[in-house]
């Protein structure tokens, strides 16, 4: 298994390289440059040109590219063009928030989605089934910024259970959890929808399989049949969906981060793009791409765990 992980990480290197090159090229094709943010909209063209020179943006692209790659190889993400802060500092400042939000959303997705999907599959077209299907569809239909505000109105302003500003840099763990709940629910809603759907459809299929009928015929308790045997077969698609969304969540969290005022990787990426902070954007993409690679490896490892029939190549 260690060998597998090492091999996958090694294979990820070309992926990361391709991602970085793509980012490097794409952000430079977009019009505008960081001097408007750094100098404001009333600075003279001469001052802008001088700044571009100081930042090294006037050099040939190939030179900038070489330098950037050289830095990355040495494990140095460089400094933000706009704030001149080391990018690693900014990443470390937001990473815990991103990880805790992603994991919490994932947890909600699985903890709510799987039981809901299983329950729905057992009484097909029954009340639970219809509720589960509608609920999960509603979760997908309202854009995260609308559902976020609705959650805030209900639970932060009316009931006052949670704060509106979920910054929570307080060392107090209770405060931190309070600040995490609403954003996690908001981000988790989409996870719940996907997991419920996949579980339900997988369970329906599994419950129709011969071995389940055999198990039932043998008089095995209903719960054992459902949770042990049928669910086992649904784990592969669930893991696929969860793995897929682990990566997607990091970027999609940006809307939730904006509405709930949480720091996070997604928000930082969008700001870097908006400010044309090439260095910061590149650095952040390294981090987010790496996180996704790790998520993919975990997904593939989990396949082997949940379904012995899938060999870990």
């Amino acid at each position, binding site marked *: 298994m260690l060998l597998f992980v090492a091999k996958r990480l090694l294979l990820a290197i070309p992926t990361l390289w391709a991602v970085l090159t793509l980012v490097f090229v794409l952000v430079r094709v977009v019009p505008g440059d960081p001097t408007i943010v750094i100098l404001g909209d009333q600075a003279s063209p001469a001052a802008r040109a001088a700044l571009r020179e100081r930042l090294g943006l006037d050099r040939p692209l190939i030179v900038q590219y070489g330098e950037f790659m050289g830095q990355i190889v040495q494990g140095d993400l460089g400094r933000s063009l706009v704030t001149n802060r080391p990018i690693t500092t900014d990443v470390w400042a937001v990473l815990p928030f991103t990880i805790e939000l992603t994991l919490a959303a994932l947890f909600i997705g699985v903890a709510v989605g799987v039981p809901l999907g299983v329950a729905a599959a057992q009484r097909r077209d029954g009340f639970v089934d219809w509720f589960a299907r509608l609920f999960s569809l509603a979760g997908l239909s309202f854009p995260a*910024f609308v559902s976020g505000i609705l959650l805030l109105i209900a639970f932060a302003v009316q009931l006052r259970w949670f704060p509106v500003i979920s910054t929570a840099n307080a060392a107090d763990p209770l405060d931190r959890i309070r600040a995490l709940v609403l954003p996690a629910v908001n981000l988790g809603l989409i996870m719940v929808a996907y997991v419920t759907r996949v579980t339900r459809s997988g369970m329906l299929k599994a419950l129709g399989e011969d071995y389940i009928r055999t198990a039932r015929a043998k008089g095995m308790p209903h719960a054992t049949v459902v949770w042990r045997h049928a669910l086992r077969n649904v784990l592969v698609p669930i893991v696929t969906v969860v793995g897929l969304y682990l990566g997607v969540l990091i970027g999609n969290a940006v809307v939730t981060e904006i509405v709930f005022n949480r*720091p996070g990787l997604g928000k930082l990426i969008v700001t870097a793009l908006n400010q044309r902070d090439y260095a910061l954007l590149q650095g952040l993409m390294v981090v987010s791409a790496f996180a996704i690679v790790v998520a993919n490896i975990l997904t593939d490892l989990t396949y082997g765990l949940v379904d012995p029939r899938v060999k870990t190549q």
Partner: protein
Amino acid sequence: MTRHLAAFTAALFLSAAPAALAQTTLNVGMAAADVGQLDPHRATTTQDKPVVAWIFNGLVRFAPGSASLEGLEPDLAEKWESSPDKLTWTFTLRKGVKFHGNWGELTADDVVFSLRRAGDSKSSSFAADYAAFESIEAVDASTVRIKLKQAIPSLLGLVTNYHGGNIVSRKAVEALGADFRLKPVGTGPFSFTEYKPNESITLAAHKGYFRGAPKIDRIVYRFIPADSARDLAFTSGELDLIYGRQDQKWAERFKKEPGVVVDVLRPSELSVIHLNTTMKPLDDKRVRQAIAHAINRPQMVAFKGELTADLPSSVVPNGYLGTDDKAPLLAYDVAKAKALLKEAGLEGGVTVKSVQTSLPTMLNSMQIVQSQLKQAGVDLQLEVVDHQTFHANIRKNLSGVTYYSAARFPIADVYLTQFFHSSSIVQTPTAVTNFSHCKVADAEITAARSEPDPVKQKALWKTAQTKIIEEVCAVPLFEQLQVWAHKTNLDFGYKLTDAIHLGPVITELTTKK
């Protein structure tokens, strides 16, 4: 340098520690994703200017809550005198004024350094304002002398706590270099302590402030771009002061809410569409006239809300020194607009292109313009791009109709020069924000700048405005007032009517119960 910084932050933390128990924190919510910058000689945006005003002082200052040049009062200078020809000005500095942290005491050297820095386009966006300065010298440690090449409308205006007039610490600027942008050091009531990207700026009371220690211990200035989220945080009590929505419904809603005061502040920002006179079909004056006649300003104001918007009176904002409040703006007349288009051979309709930012408030204004122009057969195509692309592309001469909303120093010269003088045309070495390529009023704008007689000067400015309107370089739409709201437990300590810094000033007298 790092050691210096460490000492600086350590000192801040140490001084803050004993008071940690009974701290009053003022929580402010701003409608922006992030700070632009806090270097006062560069800061121009709505999210930056209020903070700069809490950190810095000028030689003189606008009385808190006022935007009037007549009400200027002593700030870092305790007195000043001018020669009879108004060409030599001598300022005597207040003694014992301390910079934030360990950056020492203010001397004449800092003032000279700051004003020279403000006049240098390499370090300042307001260099052009200081073109008439011949020399700035320190006579002794507490006396500064400014010599002018020619008399100017308001020298005091240039040494206020506004734009280039803000006094920075020479040592700090030299030690911090490019980092000064986000680590400003001034003499004001609040000192900068922390910046978290996309999140907040934290300021601490400057205990050694020369007017006395501020009553508020800490200001947390949060960047909350989503209007609804900011409103909710204000309603739930997590924010004490917020930047509002420039919208009638918004103002009405919060006026009804108990414990809330809505502050509608002047000076306003003038929203203008600049018509590119070098681009087809706008190079035909009749097309530009047709557009001007198709704009219905009263309806524009009605859309924006009577509480939060005013009718403009010229191509220069209301209330500036030199604004022609009876300028001959073209009247709303759709029939005439259509006739003009027909005359230009475009009776089948005409398409004009506009590069437009995706920022909602600006985009919304353009949607109203789009709808009004449609009545006259002008199809305004909006090419909506993100805000940086917008700024880049309008400066590359890619936009036919450019929407720009701005407030400048309240003297007509600044606005006229930046938007309508040929030296400011985009894509030239001296470019500022002349998007229309207007050059009909160069002579008057230049002459007015050095005209010693105030009456003649005003006449020159009036002629300039008339010519610009006649040429239809730009069409004013409406004047946008600044809208804020605060909780009644917040007492600014002065009467808030105007906000030259685009937001309320927080002074040493401001309290929060």
